[in-house]
């Protein structure tokens, strides 16, 4: 059994069955990373190119480790060290990569739709590792995996996403992913951070954070970028923290079994207070850990690995 799609470009490119298969496979993959020898031979002889046009630590290392744990050869390229600095176009770059016969191309790019452009021009499966403000499907998958681990099921849960929804690919993919899997989603932010056209997503919208987290099973905080101040999206980090930041006082009104997530990197003291980030409800590091498992699952499923990976 494999995926119904060649490329993983965004959540809509996956069927419900694909999502379940990936989450199920990831759960099985997770154990490999806990072995004394953290490597299985499943994808021996396969090659993965991790193409990062945009800075990334967590995601890049995660894809890299996922490949290595399955014995695939992984090559990582970042924008500064590639021919784009010499003016080569994206299509030329990936066509050159393609003839070196990789089995999967992973791409992170600052332009929405760049992975779609790549997928149209190469015959190699493409995984979107984050494109502009558009999508970050592997993040949504690892977030869903993390919630499933704790709650058993996603169906019927209430997810609150707080922060710059308009400019967040994590928010987009999670709104699509969680609603597809039967959760209800509420987003909370100042109106400057809610995109016009939010009705494209089947979510509730509020500007009142307290209301959003009151009945939430999961609270997902998004990083606030200080440079957004220049775009007049908020007044000061101080006021933002006060109105839309998550802290112990606001948490008092949340459910007693609430889960707290954040895709990182954290802006401690702005959108999340340090005590909450490191506190008992926080799943922030579980998310990172599961990221490796989800990416292993994708590589496995996309490169036709055999089931003996579970051995």
């Amino acid at each position: 059994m494999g995926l119904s799609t060649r490329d993983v470009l965004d959540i809509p490119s996956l069927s419900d069955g694909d999502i379940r298969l990936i989450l199920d496979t990831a759960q099985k993959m997770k154990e490999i990373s806990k072995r004394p020898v953290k490597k299985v031979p499943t994808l021996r002889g396969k090659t993965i190119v991790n193409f990062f046009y945009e800075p990334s630590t967590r995601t890049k290392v995660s894809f890299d480790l996922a490949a290595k744990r399955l014995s695939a050869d992984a090559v990582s390229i970042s924008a500064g060290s590639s021919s784009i600095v010499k003016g080569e176009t994206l299509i030329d770059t990936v066509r050159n990569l393609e003839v070196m016969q990789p089995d999967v191309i992973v791409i992170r790019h600052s332009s929405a739709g760049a992975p779609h452009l790549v997928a149209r021009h190469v015959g190699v499966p493409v995984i979107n590792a984050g494109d502009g403000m558009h999508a970050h499907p592997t993040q949504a998958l690892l977030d869903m995996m993390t919630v499933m681990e704790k709650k058993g099921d996603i169906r019927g849960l209430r997810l609150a996403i707080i922060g710059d929804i308009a400019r967040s690919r994590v928010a987009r993919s999670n709104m699509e992913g969680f609603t597809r899997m039967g959760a209800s989603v509420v987003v909370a932010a100042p109106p400057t951070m809610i995109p016009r056209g939010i009705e494209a997503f089947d979510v509730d919208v509020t500007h009142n954070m307290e209301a959003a987290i009151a009945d939430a099973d999961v609270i997902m905080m998004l990083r606030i970028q200080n440079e957004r101040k220049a775009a007049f999206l908020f007044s000061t980090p101080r006021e933002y923290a006060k109105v839309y930041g998550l802290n112990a006082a606001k948490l008092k009104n949340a459910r007693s079994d609430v889960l707290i997530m954040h895709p990182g990197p954290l802006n401690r003291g702005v959108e999340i207070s340090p005590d909450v980030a490191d506190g008992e409800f926080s799943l922030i590091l579980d998310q990172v850990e599961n990221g490796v498992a989800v990416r292993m699952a994708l590589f496995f499923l996309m490169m036709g690995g055999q089931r003996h990976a579970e051995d």
Partner: protein
Amino acid sequence: MLKINGGRVVDPGHLDGVQDIIVADGRILDIVDHNAATAYDDGISRTIDAAGRVVVPGLIDMHVHFREPGHEYKETIATGCRAAASGGFTAVCPMPNTDPVNDRAQVCRFICQQAENSGVGVRVHPVGAISVGLSGEALSEYGDLKAAGAVALSDDGNPVSNDQLMRRAMEYARGFGLPVISHCEMLSLIAGGVMNEGIVAARMGLPGIPNAAESVMVARDIALCELTGAALHIAHVSTRESVQLIRAAKDRGVPVTAETAPHFFMLTDQAVENYDTNAKVNPPLRAETDRAAVREAVADGTIDVIACDHAPHSVLEKEVEFDAAANGISGIETSLGLSLSLVKEGGISMERLVIMMSTAPARILGLDSGLEKGAIADITIIDPDAAWTVDRDRFISLGKNTPFHGWELTGRAAMTIVAGQVVFDGTTARTA
């Protein structure tokens, strides 16, 4: 002598019936009842069978980009003219955003000369720049530009952001009897936007351009038009708010005119789905409510002109990331076919189409248009029933960037005649 035989002759306001047109020495010698014996019969050297065709004053596209000088790999004046002729146009107005900019007589004369040298025959009436280098800092020499052939002024591609410069440009242009064509776009409201703001942009994660980015400047320019009394023409109207502003201004007698492009009445921002850069255009394709408002404005006369904003680009500008892609649609070869679909659907009459594609642009720019005895014989013969499929690979234009590739259209130019000379003949030019 040339005889255009048995076509439905439509010249808004005074002709609509099956008649024969006799052309001699570049002018219309006479228009006579079909099959009536005339004194000219012995001198006819060529008879064009126009049965089932619509014979109209030569079409004028007052908003094209021919890329020469400076970007000849995208389009030259020669290729642009050939494409225009095949699209049914006898005259076109290239915008000044070339390199160098058409902000001086030498460039203007060069453009006219290249048109002449092309031998195509399509009339080229350049639009001069409002400001030197399109930089919005100093006025170009309008008198010189006019003497060199410019028929209007515009900084198209760039808005005129400096309100005072726009006021003075309108006043100064009025002194030369030149209309000012405004590309309305508030750059501070664009703020990195690359498509229409709305549901599609929200889903695609692309920064959006709100309608207000256009309508705020439309409102400013209407106010300046009232202040100065200059002839103002609003380019490529895309939003319902702009339509409302223009309609209200016309109602109180402001001398404003406006154009829209076929893509604004044919498409919405849904065409951008899957990051299709061929549908990336500025202003952007809008929502269905805007498309409906533009259609209504085309029908009721609020929008005076259909001009396609022909903007040819090569794959270098289009086969790239969406936000890095150039704006523009290569439209000169599809403009008539798309506009005829409005006639076919009953949205507008054939007469209204002719007004928008010939009579009105001629009036705004001070050019000739009309089918009457003694008039210059600039004539387009339309086959309203020809079924054809848009195929970008068969475009004459070097710009293959169209979101209409594969569309099945009904109606196109059968023949284009400038000053009595056939500059395009569909029966010989097209093999299918």
